[in-house]
């Protein structure tokens, strides 16, 4: 696990940079696809619990430094997604080799659908009650579709990077 920590951290920082440089400007129906949530989710689906949580924290915190939304909220949502996915990943649900091809994308799509809701729900903890006003449904749908499409390549990358250090 420790050997994988460095490559995973580097890839996570690259994912954040890709998010900020490409995905945040490349809007679909005005919506930003949040690959900073998809990356820890994919790591979780690959069954790498600790690394998934680490990715979630790093990706979330670094992304939050560039956003004006409550600091730590993206990280919090990423941690929740990573933890949930890693529980499934540990049981072999969504495994790229053994499960049906659509299971991983479907799980990711479900996560993409609920992630914006978790974000808005989390914002209530910071007494911010206005975030739900900004196209929540569109964000849910677009992220679900994008997560569905990107889930398999992302999970494959996560498995490859995560297992670089023989992590389990």
């Amino acid at each position: 696990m420790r050997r994988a920590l460095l490559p995973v951290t580097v890839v996570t920082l690259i994912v954040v940079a890709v998010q900020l440089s490409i995905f945040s400007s490349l809007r679909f129906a005005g919506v930003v696809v949040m690959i900073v949530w998809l990356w820890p989710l994919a790591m979780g689906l690959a069954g790498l619990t600790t690394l998934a949580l680490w990715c979630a924290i790093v990706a979330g915190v670094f992304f939050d430094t560039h956003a004006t939304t409550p600091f730590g909220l993206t990280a919090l949502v990423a941690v929740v997604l990573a933890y949930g996915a890693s529980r499934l990943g540990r049981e072999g649900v969504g495994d790229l080799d053994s499960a049906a091809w659509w299971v991983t994308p479907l799980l990711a799509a479900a996560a993409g659908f609920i992630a914006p809701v978790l974000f808005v729900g989390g914002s209530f903890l910071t007494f911010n009650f206005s975030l739900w006003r900004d196209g929540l449904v569109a964000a849910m749908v677009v992220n679900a579709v994008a997560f569905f499409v990107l889930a398999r390549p992302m999970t494959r990358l996560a498995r490859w990077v995560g297992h670089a250090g023989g992590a389990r």
Partner: protein
Amino acid sequence: MATDRTRRRTWTLSIAVLATVLVLYFTTGVSTGLRAGANIVITPFSWAVNAVARPIGHLLAGTVNYSDVVEQNQKLRYQLGLAEERANEAWAYARQLQQLTTGLDVPFVGSLPTVSAQVITLSPTNFAATVGISKGRDSGILVGMPVVADGGLVGRVIATTPSGATVRLISDTASSVGVTFKSGKTSIVVSGRGLNSGLDSTGVPLGTSIVPGTKLSTDGLNGGLYPAGLPVATVKTVTLTPGAATYNLTLQPAADLRHLAYLDVVLWEPPG
């Protein structure tokens, strides 16, 4: 046994993360420091990704959108010509108005210095309507200064660095602007509904003579966040829910907030 240990470690880590996040919420000093530190770490990665992705993106966008670019260029040339013509006509009026407002001691944006800046980044998230601009503290830009572009108010500066600043747009859900119209006797509050949804106003008194097409501008009330007279929006619809004692308005922002390229920061600070 090993599974128990792993599970324990996972729980401990999760609780530690949650505790850290909660602490960060309530200690803005720490969060500001963390933001600055994290920015330093992420910058080289962003730079590298940009160096690779931007030329490819420009190439693709240029290939796909070439005819649009030509059309847009022609349109812009035409608009530039019109704007120059109007600027010449407006110069004399502006001078007269400036003399009048100076005499009345009323702040007028035409008399205030501005700094032009380029929009370099959009909000990275779905839940904030902000833009990053190319000038910051070194150019005299401070937190709280109003920002205008394209014929109207765009927002206000909420964060600065020596060479850049973040502008919260008036369409952000956390934004509210005090505005007035016509005679200037009634003030109402305009709220953002998100980058894709524009502006609205609720709680407008029933006696108010407001109709679609009415233009709203900042009220400049004492202690307000903006100087008086900045165009904000035009009323699109006026609705009255049965049984309600107030109107709800949907508004069209005066500036095109979704296609900002250049904007002007008004070097004016809110009083107090």
